[in-house]
């Protein structure tokens, strides 16, 4: 290409106002970012009511795909060493720290980003301590070695709270992840959630460990609540008591572990063990002791 022509083209670009490259907000399933199989989107506006994106609107089939991805990821993630899980979650904190501006640009307060990062660090440190805190040897009355240890329940479906967006998401995802569960999150904060998905996707989190469905909890959550291959249901983000009741009743059919934290949660307070123990099973192993 002749050098002269290139120069003139460059100068033309420099003078025109630059058009930003927008991000397409898709779903996050199995480590990939697919569109909704339904082809549906919904309009996302900023706080001033300005259009900012057409977010993917998840359907029941997306939920089904997310369960498949979460189940497929469960074996390896639950079997990963606690040290490894801690490192991965710490890596998420590192990546989030590096991308903090992306979140403040999405109107997430800086203090909330700090809190979210610190919360990830907190859970990263829990992975290899929880078994010692909630498990242990049992002094049975006989010649047996007997030990109880926590294990993940399996696939956990979570309705994330609407507010705070980032801290809310991190607060429901991290404890389930830290305990070795794989997670499907339903959220109505697509921009923050998918930006967080990008953080996860670049943080050594294996595909399928966290899956994010943007859209309507009322539409998608019932499919997860009644899905036989889902083991836990976190209703933290369900404000509608009628929907919460329906979801809980649906979950009863397969005896899912259901978590319904009391309303008015202080998101900056120490979460305690409850978010982690909600999706833990206790396995007790016996073995004789004899020469």
């Amino acid at each position, binding site marked *: 290409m002749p050098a002269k022509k290139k120069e003139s083209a460059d100068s033309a670009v420099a003078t025109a106002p630059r058009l930003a490259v927008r991000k397409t907000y898709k779903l996050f399933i199995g480590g990939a970012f697919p569109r909704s199989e339904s082809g549906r989107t919904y309009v996302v506006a900023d706080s001033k009511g300005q259009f900012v994106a057409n977010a993917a609107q998840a359907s029941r089939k997306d939920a089904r795909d997310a369960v498949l991805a979460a189940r497929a990821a469960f074996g390896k993630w639950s079997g990963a060493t606690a040290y490894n899980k801690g490192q991965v979650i710490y890596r998420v904190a590192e990546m989030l720290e590096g991308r903090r501006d992306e979140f403040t640009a999405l109107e997430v307060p800086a203090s909330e980003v700090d809190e979210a990062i610190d919360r990830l660090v907190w859970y990263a440190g829990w992975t290899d301590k929880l078994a010692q805190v909630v498990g242990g040897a049992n002094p049975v009355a006989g*010649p*047996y070695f007997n030990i109880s240890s926590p294990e993940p329940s399996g696939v956990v479906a979570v309705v994330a709270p609407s507010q705070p967006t980032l801290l809310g998401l991190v607060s429901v995802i991290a404890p389930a992840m830290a305990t070795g569960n794989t997670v499907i999150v339903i959220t109505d904060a697509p921009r923050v959630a998918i930006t967080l998905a990008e953080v996860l996707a670049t943080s050594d989190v294996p595909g399928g460990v966290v899956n994010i469905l943007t859209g309507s909890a009322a539409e998608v959550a019932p499919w997860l609540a009644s899905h036989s291959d889902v083991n836990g249901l976190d209703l933290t983000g369900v404000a509608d008591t009628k929907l919460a009741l329906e979801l809980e009743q649906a979950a009863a059919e397969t005896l899912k572990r259901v978590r319904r934290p009391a309303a008015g949660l202080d998101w900056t307070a120490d979460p305690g063990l409850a978010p982690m123990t909600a999706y833990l099973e206790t396995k007790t192993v016996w073995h*004789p*002791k*004899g*020469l």
Partner: protein
Amino acid sequence: MTATISPLSEVTRSDAALRTFLHGLPGVDRVGADARAAGLGTRSIKTTAKAWAIDLAIRMVDLTTLEGSDTPGKVRALCAKARQPDPGDPACPSVAAICVYPSMVPTAAEALRGSGIHLASVATAFPSGQAPLKVKLDDTRAAVAAGADEIDMVISRGAFLSGRYLEVFEEITAIKEACGKAHLKVILETGELVTYDNVRRASWLAMLAGGDFIKTSTGKVAPAATLPVTLIMLEAVRDFLDTTGRKVGVKPAGGIRTTKDAIKYLVMVNEIAGDGWLDPDWFRFGASTLLNDLLMQRTKLATGHYSGPDYFTLD
């Protein structure tokens, strides 16, 4: 019987083959075996079953004296007791055998003549077995020559524990040959073998080498016979019969003092090896004080009231 043993004849060709075979036997979980033995120990044997069991137990006793202080007088008294355990009741059966040291065999042979009671002699440098093979063979031949029709040999526990299985095997086969027509009981001395895995392996080793009986203990080492060890040995003879077609007897010895204990053993024989072993030809008790307790309980059942030691002979 050689033909029926053939499925296992290969395994004794070399030390390596023997080791591979013995270590390939299923393991024994100690806690599980103990629990099984204890469970059988809770069987409640009453009335007619108890009477039957007591008489059988008496018929299974190898009435034993194995002391440095044994004399012909002591042995003659024991033989008299063996013939007629309860002088007050001629219906009381006599015991299976008398068991003595080789030096006492001539006396015992004389005292038991015509009674049908077997005469067992310990041999092979009992109880330690720590003597040259030649001495052990001589010991055995002498006892047989003097009239013993059963030989209770000890295995070389040192050789066994250091893994020289072929040496133990060859020693047993040599003794077996020296026994001639006498039956060979092989004492494993399970108290020194310690683990149940060892008990199982030693049981198979003794059976492969031609032992007619496997016996728990010399009585000189604690623990002597226990229920779980006998359980392992009963499983061994049961499985050996299944595998080879040859039936081997079992003799717990030492520490069995009460009727209650003896009945627990009989229950175990019944439920582990099966009632084919409920016979003095296939199961014996090596004991001395047991006999009087059996007699006391026998009287209690017959009369309905408890008896006392002064009513039974002390020999």
